[in-house]
């Protein structure tokens, strides 16, 4: 036996304390007056009996308690155990990385993987600790470092295959993090997976330092034949006031054998409306087009099921369709020209995603109802409509968009009116660039959604447009300048008010002050401006597992919402303005339902979530290549087994933790001693 802090053993001298207590405390301070002690003094020793210890059990208890407490402080440990552990290489810290990605649902992969994990757990020594990490796209510590095999086994039994794609990087990084925190010398990670090649790009920054080993257990099958439905496309056509959709499903065969006569079923709102037959060549793709069907309402749920194979998850593809909603625009133009909005109207008349519904009116006819049910109001080179300032302001604050095309006729409210602060900057007089070289757009804020599509090279040449005349504008501190002319003057500026947006274009969008209307960038520019101002987002028919959805952006009400996942799990998302992020991580394949807590009528909003298509590619990776990449060694050699390291005294002491038991026993003995001493003192008049 050894001691980590042997100096504390000096405290064993405290053993004298109980003896002294026995001898001294017994003589309580009771003084008896006596006339003379001349005879008492003559007796050789008066206090002989005082020194006689009457309660040996008490003394033993006190001495044992003190000794145990002192020994506990000296932190004892058994060298023999330490030596034994050292001979066997010492305890291990094991991280079991269990792949639960969707591909593990292939055949008996998951069963084999769990068996492998159980084998690792059963191979753990008495002092070994293991952490179970379940991973797919992300990694999560499912069971923190524990020596309790039953808990580990239970965690493995309850683990399920997920819908995520395989990514080894996060799991290996987490394992490295766990192992690096461990004080144990022998640190191992066991990776149990089907080793999909798509999960490892080689560029992951997952490196194990020396001393950590990575062991792999592959459950991959030799055959990787797999049919999947990686995508679906939709063709929309208007027919007698309704929208008809043609669904085309893509099929992918990752196997070596051709697939013939595969049944491909289109299901809409739970009804199989058509079954097509398809054939797919090995390592090839094919598509199946179904007959168009009429889209009668919003949130129509559909799915494609193709054939059957050992991995059924990717044989299905879900989608949600809603009829297209046009963006309603009212263009307010001047009084003197009937074709003032010709270019704008023509540009906006083109396009199906979205369809722009345009109404043109003159400023004199504008009244508050003009803005009802509109998404965007365009004030096209026109004086500000009289008497409509308040209505326009309310329209913007509720989320509407206003595009001010500032020509020579444009006037905006100024001064102390409430609607004056609706518009960005302060509009000044016209600047004429016809006398010399015409102006052009010199700066575009490509980070803004309006110009983001023009960011890539050859995605739109704004410099080709000539600008002959524009209005000077002094932008305010809170305004965002989106574009400037070559002389630095503001070309476009944005201001947000309430939920809505206002953009002032300081030149015209026709052929009077500029020739941009005849340039190729005109159409996308106008579309982008209106889409942005209308908060238009193309309806997404499906999402991929792992994507995060911002529910607040999709919210139509401020009420709280209940989200029902495909597995039936219900979560409540608080309403807007209640400080919640409103983010929904889409982890399950299938249809998510989002419904308000209060309203019961109408179809609930639905979101389709599909597997990541790469998860269907079961081509395996060579595990040794991954091990070599992570550890820097060609093979996972167990270095610790080869040369067992001496366990330190601290490790041995910490592992045995004898002090804890000694301290508890000591305190317990003290308690017993106190009880016995109290009883004895009650019995005896005077100890």
């Amino acid at each position, binding site marked *: 036996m050894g001691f980590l802090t042997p100096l504390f053993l000096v405290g064993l001298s405290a053993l004298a304390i109980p003896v002294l207590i026995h001898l001294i405390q017994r003589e309580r301070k009771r*003084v008896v007056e*006596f*006339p*003379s002690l001349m005879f*008492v*003094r*003559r007796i050789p020793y*008066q206090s002989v009996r005082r020194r006689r210890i009457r309660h040996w059990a008490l003394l033993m208890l006190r001495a044992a308690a003190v000794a145990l407490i002192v020994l506990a402080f000296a932190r004892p440990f058994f060298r023999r155990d330490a030596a034994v552990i050292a001979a066997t290489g010492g305890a291990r810290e094991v991280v079991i990385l269990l792949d639960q990605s969707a591909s593990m649902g292939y055949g008996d992969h998951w069963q084999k993987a769990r068996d492998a994990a159980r084998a690792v757990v059963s191979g753990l020594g008495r002092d070994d600790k293991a952490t179970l990490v379940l991973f797919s796209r992300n990694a999560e510590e499912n069971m923190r470092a524990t020596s309790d095999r039953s808990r580990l086994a239970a965690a493995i039994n309850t683990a399920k295959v997920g819908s995520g794609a395989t990514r080894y990087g996060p799991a290996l990084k987490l394992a490295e993090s766990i192992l690096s925190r461990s004080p144990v010398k022998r640190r191992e990670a066991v990776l149990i997976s089907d080793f999909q090649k798509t999960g490892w790009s080689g560029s992951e920054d997952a490196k194990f330092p020396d001393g950590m080993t990575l062991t792999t257990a592959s459950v991959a099958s030799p055959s990787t034949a797999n049919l999947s439905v990686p995508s679906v496309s939709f063709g929309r056509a208007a027919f007698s006031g309704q929208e008809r959709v043609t669904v085309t499903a893509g099929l992918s065969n990752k196997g070596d054998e051709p697939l013939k006569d595969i049944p491909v079923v289109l299901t809409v709102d739970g009804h199989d409306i058509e079954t097509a037959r398809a054939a797919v060549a090995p390592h090839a793709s094919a598509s199946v087009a179904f007959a168009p069907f009429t889209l009668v309402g919003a949130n129509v749920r559909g799915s494609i099921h193709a054939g059957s194979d050992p991995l059924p998850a990717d044989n299905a593809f879900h989608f949600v369709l809603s009829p297209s909603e046009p963006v309603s625009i009212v263009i307010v133009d001047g009084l003197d020209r009937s074709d003032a909005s010709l270019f704008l109207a023509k540009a906006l008349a083109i396009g199906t995603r979205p369809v722009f519904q345009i109404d043109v009116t003159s400023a004199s006819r504008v009244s508050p109802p003009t803005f009802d049910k509109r998404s965007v109001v365009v004030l096209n080179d026109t004086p500000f409509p009289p008497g409509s300032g308040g209505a326009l302001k309310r329209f913007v604050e509720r989320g509407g968009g206003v595009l001010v095309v500032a020509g020579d006729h444009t006037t905006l409210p100024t001064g102390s009116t409430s609607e004056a602060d609706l518009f960005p900057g302060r509009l000044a007089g016209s600047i004429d660039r016809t006398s010399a070289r015409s102006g052009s757009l010199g700066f575009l804020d490509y980070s803004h959604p309006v110009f983001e599509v023009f960011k890539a090279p050859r995605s739109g040449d704004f410099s080709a447009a000539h600008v002959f005349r524009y209005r000077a504008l002094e932008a305010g501190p809170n305004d965002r300048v989106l574009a400037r002319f070559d002389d630095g003057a503001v070309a476009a500026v944005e201001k947000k008010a309430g939920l809505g947006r206002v953009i002032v274009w300081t030149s015209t969008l026709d052929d009077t002050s500029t020739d941009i209307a005849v340039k190729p960038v005109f159409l996308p520019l106008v579309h982008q401006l209106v889409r942005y101002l209308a908060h238009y987002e193309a309806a997404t028919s499906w999402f991929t597992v792992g994507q995060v959805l911002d529910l607040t952006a999709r919210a139509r009400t401020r009420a709280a919402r209940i989200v029902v996942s495909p597995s039936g799990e219900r979560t409540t998302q608080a309403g807007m303005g209640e400080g919640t992020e409103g983010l929904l991580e889409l982890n399950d394949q299938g249809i998510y339902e989002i419904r308000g807590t209060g309203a019961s009528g109408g179809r609930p909003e639905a979101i389709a979530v599909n597997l990541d298509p790469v998860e269907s590619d079961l081509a395996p990776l060579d595990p040794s290549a991954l091990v070599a990449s992570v550890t820097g060694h060609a093979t996972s050699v167990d270095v610790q087994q080869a040369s067992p390291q001496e366990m330190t005294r601290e490790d041995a002491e910490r592992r045995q933790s004898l002090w804890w038991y000694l301290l508890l026993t000591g305190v317990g003995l003290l308690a017993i001693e106190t009880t016995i001493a109290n009883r004895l003192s009650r019995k005896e*008049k005077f100890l």
Partner: protein
Amino acid sequence: MERQVTPGARFVDPKILARIGNLELLARTVVEGFINGLHRAPFFGASIDFAEHRGYVAGDDIRRVDWRLYARTDRYYVKQYEADTNTNVSILFDISKSMQFASRGIPKLEYGCFVGACMAYLAQRQRDRVGIITFDSDIVTHVPPSAKHFNITLHTLDRARAERPGNLGVPLNKMAEHFKRRGILILISDFYEEPDTILEAIKPLRFIGNELIVFHVLDPAELDFGYDDASSFEDLETGEQIPVVPESLRDEYRAMIRAHIEALTTKFSEHRIDYTLLNTAEPLDRALFSYLSSRERLMRVR
């Protein structure tokens, strides 16, 4: 409540005195004096009790010549009488701090006061002169013997307080120098000194022929050491504390105090000193009675 007419008269318990009053307090030796009384005069003189004849020497009063004897013997003899006279009774009272001790009942000091008062009363009734000396390590109060000092004696007893440690040698030596006339000395103390030391201190009192009566006053606790609990025992006089487990040394203590008393008894009797051990737990009258009985018995023997 008894009506007290004299200060200190409370010490004179009528019940005690009722029993003592039937006895005669007789002096062992003749004390000089001239008043008739129970005490025999130490000198021959005018008295009714014939003592002896002696030959006439020049200067003798010729009136004392026994002429009848001259007629028969033809020699001159003078008749000598033992004259009864009053004597000096001095109470020597030890008021050292140890006398304050009381385990149960009255303190030794108070008990000593009773004894002293009784003695003084008896002496006063015999028309003896009564005085008192209280002492501890030195003489504290001194009331010379006088026929008129009975009340003062009682008063002194009443005021006696045990406050200082005691020492027999010094005060008794001083007293010995002081006594010019023979008398009866009644010494009341607890005698916490070695017997030889005590005797050495008392001896001078005997030099001029004083009759010495010694009362050794002890508390029952001092005799039987009846303590049970181990305690710190504090010496009343020195303040010294000694941890003591009584049951372990009780036997030894008893043997020692017994040896002490026996030594005192032996040594006092060797020097013809009356010694009486008084236990404060015993009735006072019984103690006095036994003492006076013994004195009477002694007188008769003589």
